[in-house]
């Protein structure tokens, strides 16, 4: 019973939609089939977009050194970092939910909260291909005015977010989730997967196996530990690197 409850809790969105669809089917089959069709369209797009996005995000994780990302997008990256973030967002492709994995991998590798927000927002709004579509329907004046206004706002949004939310806030929330681990895979999912080796194990995979064997606890992971330190301590450490 408890297990079933957990399964539902973890997948509440799916269960909610199954319930809604079931009700709709009896109340109005027409709307039911229409929603199915729209959802199908979304899912096809998702299947096209997400696999390459996952591959790209994980390759970033594995290949691009933390120092490079920190230098380009970290706290001290200044104007150049902001410009680069806008461009990354602008040249990217795919819907906003495709931006999350990529932005998260950059964030883990040292991008600041401010630049993460800029990447996410410009990914969503600033699209060179979309600009063409927008101006063909609504006129070039409309589209270009909207773009010219949006870019400064995105920079301001990043600035405000950087003041409101600290890096440590995000890391803490991501790390404090759920403590029960059923398999190595579960542990791995909670790890940064950067294979930094600071825990003494060769890779996150080895460390996760160690957690399952009870040799270490998950918070022995150096990156997780660091996330729990105070904000000032965290920043100092970053500067030392």
């Amino acid at each position, binding site marked *: 019973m408890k297990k079933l409850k957990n399964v539902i809790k973890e*997948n*509440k*969105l*799916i269960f*909610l*939609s199954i319930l*809604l669809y079931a009700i709709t089917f009896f109340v109005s089959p027409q*709307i039911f089939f229409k*929603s199915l069709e*729209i*959802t*199908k*369209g*979304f899912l096809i*797009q*998702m299947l096209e*977009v*997400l*696999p*390459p996005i*996952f*591959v790209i*995000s*994980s390759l970033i994780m*594995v*290949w691009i050194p933390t120092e490079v990302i920190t230098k380009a997008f970290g706290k001290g990256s200044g104007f150049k970092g902001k410009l680069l973030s806008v461009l990354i967002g602008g040249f990217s*492709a*795919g819907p*906003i*939910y*495709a931006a*999350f*994995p990529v*932005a*998260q991998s950059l964030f883990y590798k040292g991008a600041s*909260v401010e630049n*993460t927000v800029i990447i*996410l927002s410009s990914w969503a709004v600033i699209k060179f*291909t979309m600009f063409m579509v*927008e101006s063909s*329907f*609504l006129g070039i004046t*409309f589209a270009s*005015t*909207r773009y010219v206004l*949006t870019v400064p*706002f995105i920079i*301001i*949004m990043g600035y405000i*977010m950087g003041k*409101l*939310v600290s890096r440590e*806030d*995000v890391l*803490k*929330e991501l790390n404090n989730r759920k403590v029960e681990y059923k398999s190595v895979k579960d542990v*791995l*999912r909670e790890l940064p*997967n950067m*294979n930094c080796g600071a825990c003494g194990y060769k890779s996150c995979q080895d460390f996760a196996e160690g957690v399952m064997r009870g040799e270490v606890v998950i918070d022995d992971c150096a990156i997780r530990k660091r996330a729990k330190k105070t904000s000032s301590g965290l920043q100092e450490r970053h500067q030392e690197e």
Partner: protein
Amino acid sequence: MTTLILVIIAVVFFGFSIFKSKEKTKESLKISKNLMATTFVEVIGVMALVGWVLAMLPPSLIKQWLGNSNGIISILLSATIGTVTIIPAFIAFPLSESLLKSGASIAAIAAFITTLTMVGFATMPIEFKFFGKKFTLHRLWISFLAAILIALLMGVILG
């Protein structure tokens, strides 16, 4: 078109990765698998819900709501509709064009398009997974506010 670009980037990067190191490539595939496991169910749930909302709320109804009102209320209303829905561009732009023709204000259309793309209410559960609640909720209200300001400025400049 956009998917093609993505696939090409992924393939080139991946090819480079295999060429450089099989070990690291394997590692990256493991990470991809984890990402997939955590995201897919969530994204499918979100899509199903949005599909349902869109079926209940056909473009004709949205048009009825936004087509003839003006002033700040229509801006807020269109911003809200843009926030809670995900509408693909190929529907959103023609819809906006017909809204403009049927009398909606420039500011309302700007609010609709900007919130539609920038403020992701529907994708919130996915964002929670990747960045946590604090980050997501703050980003949501700040972008909503920014979208309203952009819309108002658009109204002033072009209206």
